[in-house]
């Protein structure tokens, strides 16, 4: 039986996140977390492989302790085991530091046949973590996969790029990122939902990962974020009321004033 590891991320529910004004990072502890939407198709792809070929599927996530309910929900979808990678030392990691942490955690879960991730996260939108992690693990990176099969000991992926589709055949192990467009994702299982109280994720801290603190967290992150700010309403729209002729004249006047009309 082979092993597939799915890396998932909790992202702040849009509209609930606060920003740390000093570090310019998101204060994830305070936000309501949801499963990064593109991770659901990634889980589905892994679970379909499990259905067909009896792979063991493990979901791992780096994040604060409030990720636990989300990981439990992922367990309810049908994965065999859940891991939370959590340590204060990991806080503020950019994509490179995150990839270092994930790569180390994955090496502890080795041997595996496949690492699956959503193509990008809806909070960062970089799409860098899957290929960075592959590179650190010295494994092939296959990005933007829309379909994945396992035939005679090899994976066959259909990947999408700007120019069309291509079929890629590869031997285990590799890191693939999955595009969000998928026809169907499964609901959670009632049996598993009813047993969630007994299910807790295994926790991996830096004591287990043993990474140099200079290479992780804020200090290990080369990305310098100039500013992150919360959306605020800076100006209100103006509503003009009146007869159509008057309104047309008023509109022309405003457009001239703003320089859109000569």
């Amino acid at each position, binding site marked *: 039986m082979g092993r597939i590891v799915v890396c998932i991320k909790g992202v702040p529910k849009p509209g609930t996140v606060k920003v740390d004004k000093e570090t310019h990072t998101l204060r994830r502890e305070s936000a309501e977390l949801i499963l990064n939407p593109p991770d659901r198709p990634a889980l589905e792809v892994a679970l379909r492989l499990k259905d067909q070929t009896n792979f063991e599927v493990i979901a791992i996530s780096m994040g604060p302790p409030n990720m636990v309910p989300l990981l439990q929900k992922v367990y309810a979808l049908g994965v065999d085991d859940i891991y939370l990678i959590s340590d204060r030392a990991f806080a503020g990691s950019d994509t490179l530091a995150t990839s270092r942490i994930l790569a180390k955690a994955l090496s502890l879960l080795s041997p595996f046949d496949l690492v699956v991730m959503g193509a990008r996260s809806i909070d960062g939108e970089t799409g860098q973590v899957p290929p960075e992690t592959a590179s650190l693990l010295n494994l092939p990176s296959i990005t933007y996969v829309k379909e994945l099969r396992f035939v005679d000991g090899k994976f066959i992926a259909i990947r999408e790029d700007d120019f069309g589709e291509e079929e890629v055949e590869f031997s285990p192990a590799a890191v693939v990122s999955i595009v969000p467009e998928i026809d*169907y994702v*499964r*609901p*959670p*299982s*009632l*049996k598993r*939902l*009813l047993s969630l109280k007994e299910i807790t994720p295994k926790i991996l801290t830096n004591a287990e990962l043993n990474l140099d603190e200079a290479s992780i967290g804020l200090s290990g992150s080369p990305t310098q974020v100039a500013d992150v700010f919360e959306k605020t309403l800076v100006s209100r729209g103006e509503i003009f009321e009146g007869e159509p002729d008057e309104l047309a004249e008023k509109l022309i006047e405003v457009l001239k004033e703003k320089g859109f009309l000569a």
Partner: protein
Amino acid sequence: MLIEFPLKEEHKIMIDLIKEIGETYIKPYSLEWDEKEAYDATPIKALAQADLFGLIIPKEYGGLGFGTFEMCLAVEWLSYFCAGVSTTYAASFLGAYPIILFGSKEQKERYLPSIAKGEKLCAFALTEPQAGSDAFAIKATAKKDGDFYILNGIKQWITNGGIADIYIVIALTDPAKGARGASAFIVEKGDPGFVVGKKEKKLGLRASVTTDLIFNDCRIPKDRLIAREGMGFMVALKTLDYARCGAGAQALGIAQAALEVSLKHAKTRVQFGQPVYQFQAVSHTFAEMAMRLSSARALVYSVCQYIDSGAKDFSGASAMAKCFATDQAMWITERAIQMMGGYGYMRDYPVQKYFRDAKCLQIYEGTNEIQRNVIARELAKWIKV
């Protein structure tokens, strides 16, 4: 609504799951399925993957081992999203009950695990062209031939015809004995001599499939007999006693949806300078709808709990739950259309669908006239003079 029925944590988890399935796999498509009279297997696949076909299957056969109450909660909330989908779902339980209640150990081991996983859908076939309310007038026969039975006849208006893999068929093994000569059989899709007839065109429940079943020298092994020869109507009537609560639960879900949609409309639709809900003729109608729905729910839930408490004879109770709740759903959905005026009548809005779906509930699984007969018969037994 105004009454929060006390539910256990596991019930709340199940209802939340069904709402998630309803929002994701049903709600965006239900009007389209209705319009096209199309069966879509996607929500059935989702229900299967969510373990919901295993609700009433005993744990030793891979199910959850729940009772009638949980089955009804599931059917109620599924019907809230689409009574067509819930009909496919509930009819499968109708086909599973005979095996759960009367099947041999071998039959249970052979069929229940795949039913629990939702890999195989079930159907229940009693009605024939000349035998509706008068179920004892069936003509289909099953003749013993060595290690086989040979089935001949036609079953009519069978929910899940063609999409089911397992069919419970009631046929006469001894026509001379009349009702006491009927037996229940398990027929599998693909059995020689078994074909599925035309798909019916219906007023409502159009996302579900209803067909004839035709048996033309259909040869099945003798171990497909459920219980013993002559037990056919015992199997059928006991099954219907359990399943009738499911029809009552469908009524609750449809009526709940109709009430919600029409109430939202009445509170926002402005006529004569105010929301129409401000008119007493309208608001009092909603008050009546709420009372009728709440009392129907209280009756269905209490009958389910009565059955699950181990009651032996509950024909009258389940007939009351089915008859009362489905009559209320018919009244509530009709009023919901009226409260929405032209919007209620248009097929762009779901309320007309609720109305058409509700109509069938007064007819199938025993017409409400037959339910009243059953209730009256049981009442007569209760007071002996």
